[in-house]
């Protein structure tokens, strides 16, 4: 399968326009979703919009559908990470070349999407992160939250040697490799942030950050505040630790020459036989 898509992107890329999917995970966002979907669809770009309705009990799904998006609905609320992953699974099954994810609350400006995709098309990165801290800024972040972001930014730098300032950004664009990783069991659906970046680096994928302006969330409710932020910091630190000790040999092989379609975490244990290949250095991915 990998072989076939390698060929396709290498030989046919020029004839066939890249297929782009914009994934918007949404939970009770009926206020914003219509406007967000409409502004994405209004871009002078061929793309499909997918809203993953994470078990909302308001009219989010109906609003999104009315605005012209494809809608996937979780029958129960599963959390942001799971909703995101559902979108990536959809992208993988429907053979999209690029996936852009953005939040449903309107804080991410769709006008940056073409820029994100250009980076992928130029193959400057496998994942491009829209960052609110690199230079341009239109959005003030609460101090405690900023502290948390700094902590994880430092951790990411420690493990990847790469300086990524906004590790919690939900505005990202990914190519097929990343889509495959995100759709797999390796993706930490609890809350995917800094840990995924480290995992990607260890897998040998390239991450790039793009500075941009962002709107303050209109609904005003941040995902983390007060105690839940502290709990989040502890949880994320543990998740990073797990990411760092994860055996990524299977993944690295899958991205280079294997024909495995689905990355199953279970298979790692089975093939962890050190005789198979000289293992990569444990700490650094590349």
């Amino acid at each position, binding site marked *: 399968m990998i072989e076939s898509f390698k060929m396709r992107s290498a030989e046919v890329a020029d004839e066939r326009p890249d297929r782009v999917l914009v994934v918007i995970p949404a939970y009770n966002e009926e206020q914003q979703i219509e406007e967000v979907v409409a502004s994405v669809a209004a871009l002078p770009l061929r793309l499909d919009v997918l809203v993953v309705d994470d078990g909302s009990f308001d009219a989010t799904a109906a609003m999104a559908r009315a605005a012209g998006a494809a809608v996937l609905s*979780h029958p129960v609320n599963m959390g942001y990470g799971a909703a995101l992953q559902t979108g990536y699974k*959809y992208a993988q099954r429907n053979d999209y070349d690029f996936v852009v994810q953005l939040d449903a609350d309107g804080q991410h400006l769709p006008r940056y999407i073409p820029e994100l995709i250009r980076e992928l098309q130029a193959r400057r990165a496998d994942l491009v992160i829209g960052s609110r801290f690199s230079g341009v800024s239109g959005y003030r972040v609460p101090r405690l939250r900023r502290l948390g972001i700094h902590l994880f930014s430092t951790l990411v730098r420690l493990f990847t040697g790469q300086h990524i300032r906004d590790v919690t950004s939900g505005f990202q664009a990914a190519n097929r490799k990343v889509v495959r990783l995100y759709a797999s069991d390796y993706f930490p659906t609890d809350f995917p942030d800094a840990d995924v970046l480290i995992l990607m680096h260890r897998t040998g994928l390239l991450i790039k950050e793009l500075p941009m302006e962002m709107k303050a969330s209109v609904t005003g409710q941040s995902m983390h505040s007060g105690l839940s932020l502290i709990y989040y910091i502890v949880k994320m630190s543990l998740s990073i630790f797990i990411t760092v000790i994860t055996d990524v040999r299977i993944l690295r092989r899958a991205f280079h020459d294997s024909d495995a379609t689905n990355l199953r975490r279970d298979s790692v244990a089975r093939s962890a036989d050190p005789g198979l290949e000289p293992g990569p250095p444990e700490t650094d991915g590349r």
Partner: protein
Amino acid sequence: MAVDYSILWVLISGVIVLLSAWYGFLEFLSRLIGAVTPTTTLFIFGTIFLIALNIHYSVRLSELSRRNKVLVQEMALLRHDLTESVRHKGEDSR
């Protein structure tokens, strides 16, 4: 899974009956681990057992919720496919 847990609880009740009926055994155990009173022995083993059981449940629950997540995602994807194909059929027959 239900049978596994039944066996576990039957065994546990057996142990409880054994310990209440045969006090000498409890005293023997206490001497073995150096406990002064038999109650200590009961508490120690009881606590160890409960902790182990809880860890086991955590592992089980995590795996179950992972599977649950996969199923919910699959369901959302399938439902979308279903609606799409029904809609296409409707368009074809018109």
